[in-house]
């Protein structure tokens, strides 16, 4: 019992971070067919901004958690218009290379500006504590992380289902040609969703800094985890990411607990077999590729 709760709790915290870091990706992929291996760059940027703001300028952590993602969202919008937009519709080789180049550049810039050491983001005191209930001990911080993850998932789902913007995004993801023919401005929709995706990744970068430490090779270190969340969720779906992040979080945590020596093998073996048996992912439609 205690074990289940502890493992579930850790898995949920891990999944929340992964979900935030990856949710924007499914949009990039679904909407424009762009294979964005460099999505973690936005999480890294968010992490660095928060670390510098809090560490060097005494910014309150909560303020950074709000301000940094907004800032990253704006940067993401600019980069999407200036760079990404040039490669829509290109073959996957060009897109993959573009992303690798982008990761190299941002990694080098981060190293030049902030040095090679990892940048800690100091937590507010009230979060750096533990809460005990009965025989359980939970980290307050992780509870906060899970809350943010769950909240974001709810907000994303709600706005997709219930808002005008959300229905436009859904229409554009599911059938871009049709959406354009009824007059939706897909370019604008895409820039907006790209920016939102970047901002969410930035939140993930900040609150996940203990799981994925902020350092210049961040985007490479996290690349595969973020990509497989989307691959497992499936293309053309915006709802599967949370469940897929949760599955990966569970595999990571359970194998880390019971088979610490073989955790990574099990994770990638599971992903490989899953994708082979179900190439469209959990919620993707067959044939969307």
């Amino acid at each position, binding site marked *: 019992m205690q074990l289940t709760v502890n493992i579930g709790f850790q898995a949920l915290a891990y999944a929340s971070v992964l979900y935030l870091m990856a949710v924007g990706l499914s949009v990039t992929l679904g909407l424009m067919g762009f294979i964005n291996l460099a999505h973690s760059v936005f999480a890294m940027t968010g992490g660095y901004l928060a670390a510098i703001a809090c560490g060097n300028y005494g910014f309150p952590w909560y303020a950074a958690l709000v301000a940094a993602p907004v800032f990253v969202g704006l940067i993401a919008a600019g980069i999407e218009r200036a760079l990404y937009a040039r490669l829509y519709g290109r073959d996957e080789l060009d897109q993959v290379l573009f992303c690798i180049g982008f990761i190299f550049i941002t990694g080098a810039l981060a190293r030049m500006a902030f040095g090679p050491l990892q940048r800690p983001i100091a937590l507010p005191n009230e979060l750096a504590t533990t809460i005990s209930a009965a025989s359980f001990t939970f980290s307050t911080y*992780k509870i906060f992380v899970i809350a943010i993850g769950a909240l974001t998932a709810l907000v994303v789902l709600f706005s997709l289902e219930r808002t005008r913007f959300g229905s436009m995004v859904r229409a554009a993801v599911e059938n871009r040609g049709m959406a354009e023919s009824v007059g939706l401005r897909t370019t604008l929709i895409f820039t907006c969703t790209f920016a939102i995706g970047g901002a969410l990744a930035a939140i993930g970068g900040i609150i996940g800094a203990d*799981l994925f*430490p902020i350092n210049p090779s961040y985007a490479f270190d996290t690349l595969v985890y973020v990509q497989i969340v989307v691959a497992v969720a499936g293309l053309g779906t915006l709802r599967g990411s949370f469940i897929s992040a949760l599955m990966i979080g569970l595999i990571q945590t359970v194998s880390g607990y019971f088979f610490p020596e073989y955790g990574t093998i099990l994770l990638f073996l599971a992903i490989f077999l899953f994708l082979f048996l179900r190439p469209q992912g959990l919620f993707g439609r067959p044939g969307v590729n």
Partner: protein
Amino acid sequence: MYQSRLTRRSITKALFATPMILSSRIALAADPVKVGLIFTTSGPFASSGDLMAKAAALFMKHKAPALLSGQKIEIIQRDDGGPNPEVAKRLVQELIVRDRVQFIGGIQWTPNAFAIGPLLTQSKTPCVLMNAGTSSIVRSSPFFARTSHTIWQSCYPLGQWAARNKIGKAYTLVTDFAGGHDAETGFTKGFTEAGGSVVAAVRMPIQNPNFAPLLQRVRDTKPDALFVFHPGGTQTAAFIKTYAEIGLANDGIRLIGPGDLTSDEELPSVGPIAKGIITAHHYSVAGDRPANKEFLALWHQEYGASLRPNYMSVGVWDGMRVIATTIAANKGNGDPDAAMETIKKYRDDNSPRGPISIDPQTRDIVQNEYIREVRIVNGEPYNVELETIPAVKDPWKSFNPA
């Protein structure tokens, strides 16, 4: 100088026979002696390599001129990008063949050190290991000497100390590579010989993003202490944070390990939660010795007050001193056997870490080990030295005679 010797005949000869490069390496005293240094200054482990490179530069600027009395040294620094033995091997090959260095130094990683051993033997190039800590490395070539430490040097005495200090059951958690294996076996031997018992021994991947489930398992096993070895750097803070968060400290499970666990430069970013961790190691910035004070003064003057050096920096600092002393003693004549003889006699009673010497039999370092505890001094966490175990030789070599 070298280029002019490459006549057509020597090239033809080189193509058809294994040439003697020894002759081409003998330089006049006025020529700079070339020293090749290999550090890890890019990739995920760049932070520690940076501290090593800074120590080398600091030594060359402030200490080398006085030692060398006019003899010039040219440093050629290379980046191996992390535990990449194939890269290290190619770099060393180029340093020897293309740049004609007389000494190799640096080498943060055990696998990289093993990869270059045959090259050193073949070319007779002395190499001073300034970090890699697996005991058996120095046996792989007679041209290796070490100024850093061996992992057994700290882990074996730590095992003995733990058994003496009310730790009956220990859980070991080490990174799965040669260094980690040394830590596991060294600690276990010292600990069990003194009466302790190891309840579980887990090896974790070298790049592990998620310590939580590993530590949750430790908590559920309820040992008296958790012995941990990982290669420092970015993992330090993440590990200790998770340790605090899972609540191991609350359950009274003590965290112990070699000094890599609480590497000095990372402690400020870990913060007060590191308090109480017990480690055994040969160097702490908090070490109360005049030579250390001087070293730190130079360091902070050069690199600012906020950046701390660590044990790796000191390994390089002393290693550079070994190389400079050797060059001065042999007047830069480039004879590798003479150089090795000089190195074997090296001793320095005033290293920042205390008295050190090179064991002439094993070419490995002999130094004090300190049992330290992380304490908050002036608001910042430091490894405060509690006990001194003087002049420790590498225990592994006495248990495994050549």
